[in-house]
């Protein structure tokens, strides 16, 4: 079990470019979450999927952020027209099922830097 795998570990984009972040959850886990971490805001919820279906995207900036889970083995977070304020560590996590009593396993994160 390699844990939750996130790629790339680091990504640098120019302002206005697109960034796609990848997440491979732990095999067999039905819940996949995306969080964002910055020094100023801390850890913020973005969105989550259950059995590949989007359940709650209330934390997603609507206009430029989108997330998909085309199959049970990976999820993507796409940011269009990146802005400097999008710079953060983006964390993916998975759990066996949804609900806080399930242990949440986080990936190492993707550090996005927008110049």
């Amino acid at each position, binding site marked *: 079990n390699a844990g939750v795998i996130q790629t790339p570990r680091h990504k640098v984009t120019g302002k206005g470019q697109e960034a796609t972040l990848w997440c491979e959850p732990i095999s067999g886990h039905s819940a996949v979450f995306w969080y964002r971490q910055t020094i100023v805001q*801390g850890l913020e919820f973005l969105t989550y999927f259950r059995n590949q279906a989007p359940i709650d995207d209330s934390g997603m900036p609507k206009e430029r952020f989108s997330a998909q889970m085309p199959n049970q083995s990976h999820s993507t977070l796409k940011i269009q027209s990146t802005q400097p304020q999008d710079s953060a560590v983006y964390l993916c996590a998975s759990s066996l099922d949804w*609900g*806080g009593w399930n242990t949440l396993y986080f990936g190492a994160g993707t550090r996005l830097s927008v110049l």
Partner: protein
Amino acid sequence: GQQVQQSPSSLVLQEGENAELQCNFSSTATQLQWFYQSPGGSLVSLLSNPSGTKHTGRLTSTTVTKERRSSLHISSSQTTDSGTYLCAIEGAGAKLTFGGGTRLTVRP
């Protein structure tokens, strides 16, 4: 929305001393979890404790739901305990709201 406040924001200890971390939250939580984040590392779940007292290894968490507070006690701290400890609550739905964390430094 839900708010989670952690104190202290930072704590420095000598190895062997005990640590007491506090977490206060603004609304009813159906679940409360403590996480550890090593410097530059991933988040690791330490324990879930929505109410009462729970022990694991050198960690003891006590959550008083009515008072909307939880504590994490680390006994006999070690240098490897250094890092950031985060409290998170789950309200409605499965998403977690995190506190700002307590940065713990344990000196040899």
